[in-house]
């Protein structure tokens, strides 16, 4: 068939572009990961240019492997992605079921619910960390301050004063530190992506077979068993898609981490690589290769999981 050739030709530009985009920088990273290469060094100026003579073998990999910061970043990456996925799926399901009914103003409610998804990630982070979570100037600080004031006034009140004097003074939490910045990141990304889950689950709920449900009611099925045996299986596919899409997007989370803690807080893998790349390119590249391996393991796993439902 002559068409076969034409068909190949039509796919060629996309395949070649993506292959180049994937392979060329990756090969350079691979090369850098095996040499000593730093951007600035007064003691060993010969290391500042990428050259095969500075071959280090697996030295960079060993350096990274034995680095606590690396394992912490791996842990943070997985912790952040998993938390976001679990939260968005659970919240998304609850909200989708809640909204999936006719009530006054449902159109407006849906528009409000979906809006966060379209907010630019940089704006999302700036908005949350400054105007909402800031311990002094943000809403958190203002709320905590206000509460403390109310309690202080009540302590002077007759009769109930003794009760309120037992209350400790509330202290606002700073979300820019290393114990809490991951929480802030999880919070803001969950806020942004829950609408996405809601939208997909809602669409899926609307396509549920109503006749099947009616038949189940006639058979005396309870609400819970209907949810458990009809709705949940029906939602299996949208859930797996929500998980996959989010894994794709959140493994490379960067802007939020950068804006929230600027390196003082929890770092994930992309952030750690970026930080290393300000000087030690060799180590950054080795970390990058580890990140690629991690992503590939996940990709194979996730794509297996959903390839069937996508290809139908």
């Amino acid at each position, binding site marked *: 068939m002559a068409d076969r050739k034409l068909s190949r030709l039509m796919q060629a530009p996309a395949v070649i572009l993506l292959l180049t985009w994937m392979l060329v920088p990756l090969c350079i990273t691979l090369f850098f990961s095996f040499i000593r290469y730093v951007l600035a060094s007064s003691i060993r100026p010969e290391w500042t240019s990428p050259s095969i003579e500075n071959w280090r073998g697996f030295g960079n990999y060993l350096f990274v492997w034995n680095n606590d910061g690396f394992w912490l970043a791996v842990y943070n990456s997985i912790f952040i992605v998993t938390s976001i996925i679990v939260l968005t799926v659970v919240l998304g399901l609850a909200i989708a079921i809640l909204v999936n009914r006719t009530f006054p103003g449902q159109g407006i409610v849906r528009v409000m619910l979906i809006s966060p998804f379209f907010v630019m990630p940089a704006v999302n982070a700036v908005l949350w960390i400054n105007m909402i979570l800031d311990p002094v100037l943000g809403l958190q600080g203002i709320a905590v301050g206000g509460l403390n004031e109310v309690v202080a006034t009540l302590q002077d009140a007759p009769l109930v004063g003794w009760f309120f004097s037992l209350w400790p003074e509330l202290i606002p939490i700073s979300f820019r530190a290393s114990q809490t910045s991951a929480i802030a990141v999880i919070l803001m990304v969950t806020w942004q992506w829950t609408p996405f889950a809601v939208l997909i689950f809602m669409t899926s709920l609307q396509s549920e077979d109503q006749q099947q449900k009616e038949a189940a009611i006639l058979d005396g099925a309870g609400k819970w068993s209907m949810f458990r045996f009809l709705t949940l299986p029906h939602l299996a596919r949208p859930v797996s898609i929500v998980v996959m899409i989010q894994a794709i997007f959140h493994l490379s989370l960067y802007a939020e981490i950068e804006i929230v803690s600027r390196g003082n807080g929890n770092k994930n893998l992309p952030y750690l690589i*970026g930080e290393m790349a300000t000087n030690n390119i060799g180590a950054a590249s080795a970390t990058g290769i580890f990140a690629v391996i991690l992503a590939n393991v996940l990709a194979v796993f996730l794509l297996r999981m959903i390839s069937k439902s996508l290809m139908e």
Partner: protein
Amino acid sequence: MAIVAEQSRFSRVFWPALAWITAIVIFFPIFWLVFTSFKTDADAVKPEFLFTFTPTFENYANMVDNYDYWRFLKNSVITSVFATFFALVVGVPCAYAMAFDPSRSTKDVLMWMLSTKMLPAAAVLYPMTFLTKNFLGIYDTKFLVIVVLMLVNLPIVIWMLFSYFKEIPKEIMEAGKMDGVNMWGEIKEILIPLAWGGIASTALLTFIFCWNEAYWTVRLTTTDAATLSSLIEGNRAPEGLFFGRLSAVSTAAIGPIVVLGWFCQKQLVRGLTFGAVK
């Protein structure tokens, strides 16, 4: 639905009320951003002006002086429009061939394309900077941003188009072939008119993704090609000193896209789930 039991009065009021409250809570941060943008920088951090204040437009009026807003907006619009356009130019023929003339490897190629999205961008950041700065000399140009945005979104574009094209009956295309229309004619005369809705929603979503992209656009530009993402990330520092003006410029950066998003909710679901959820 007559068979479903009458809802009690309680649940008729309670669940909608809960739905409204949830929506208001979720929308609140956006409301707060817009609300704060009408306060002066000084008022924005004072608890006594939390809800009562004299609204002002000065943050918007000064946006150009404070942030050089138009330049970033122009860059965002240009790069997003062209990246979307080129992604479609490359994506439509590819998805067309995959949908109407699939070979044994088509499935694997599609999966491979999707897997390129999972590659951590950070792993190749330095090589990209190195290549574009030292070898190609295109660092911080709109051209580079357009190319990168196009490549980043190409897998999703092809997937979305593929899922739309797949639904067009093959017979229609075959009929075109009988009439002696060649392949390009087929695309132009039959496919594009039939799949117009799908192509348009793909374009819309790609545009939104390009607009919001915050990794490559920030890290491969400095001044000339910097987009709105760079503007916001670059001005995150002043911690509270400039809540008012920061809110105004943030509102101006997300406004067009959020409104655009409202109109394409349905397409979003279909597009992002590649037609697996309808």
